[in-house]
């Protein structure tokens, strides 16, 4: 995999979109790997008791999934030199085999100096945006 050169990329260029499926087991695995054992990410009883519709995905898990649209395109993940998001809406993950899906699209929004580009990401679950101002800066060189 190799990303296009900066010269070949224009504003509006669309990165290959991806859909991610999140099941309860994925949240348990992420909790262990990241060391984030907040109960609302694995215990439905507690999640509901604090007013959530269900167990919700870690925002950082959704952020990590969305990054893959950029890192897969960039070829070398090290080219992603900046990455930021706002967590605007939780992703509830039901206790079934289907889980929840998050659709992620990305578009080059600005050409920066030194062969860098800004990619704006849109991540949606059930038709609503779950990340706000999701932006990555990629050094295409």
């Amino acid at each position, binding site marked *: 995999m190799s990303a296009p050169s900066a010269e070949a990329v224009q504003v509006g260029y669309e990165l290959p979109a991806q859909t991610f499926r999140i099941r309860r087991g994925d949240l348990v695995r992420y909790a262990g790997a*990241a060391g984030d054992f907040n109960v609302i990410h694995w215990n439905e009883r507690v999640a509901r008791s604090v007013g959530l519709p269900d167990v919700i995905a870690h925002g950082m898990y959704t952020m*990590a999934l969305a990054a893959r649209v950029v890192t897969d395109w960039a070829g070398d*993940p090290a080219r992603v030199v900046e990455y930021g998001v706002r967590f605007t809406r939780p992703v509830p993950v039901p206790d079934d085999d289907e889980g929840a899906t998050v659709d992620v699209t990305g578009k080059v929004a600005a050409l920066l100096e030194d062969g860098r580009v800004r990619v704006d990401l849109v991540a949606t679950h059930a038709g609503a945006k779950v990340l706000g101002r999701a932006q990555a800066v990629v050094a295409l060189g």
Partner: protein
Amino acid sequence: MPIDPSFAGRTYPPTEPYEVGIEKIREFATAIGDANPAYHEREAAKALGHPDVIAPPTFPFVLTFRASRQMIDDPELGIDYSRVVHGEQRFAHARPVRAGDVLTVTVTLETVRSAGGHDMVTSRSDVATVEGEHVASAWSTLVVRGEG
């Protein structure tokens, strides 16, 4: 009780060194479902010019999340963690974290502001090697929901 904005600028001592292992990077990459060879295979990472396996862009959060406990548990700040929601997260990488790095994190409370009855606490975590090489900075905004 609202958090006193005058705490902005407070810096906590660097954390104890954290040694980044190749298996931890593989475990994290597997947990986010990412089979990118740069995260799993030394030879693939080396072919891209890296000295060892590199970590995904959000991996530093594993360290900075731990480090931010210093601020969250700071009794003078008085953050009620049961009311905390993660509002925003941003990373700036000087280079990727890689296997073999021995890293410390220094947390600085950058801003405290109130809006709509909530407190927004933004901290910056600077990740550096024990040799003093800057690796990444991570900004986290925690929303402390107001009572009632």
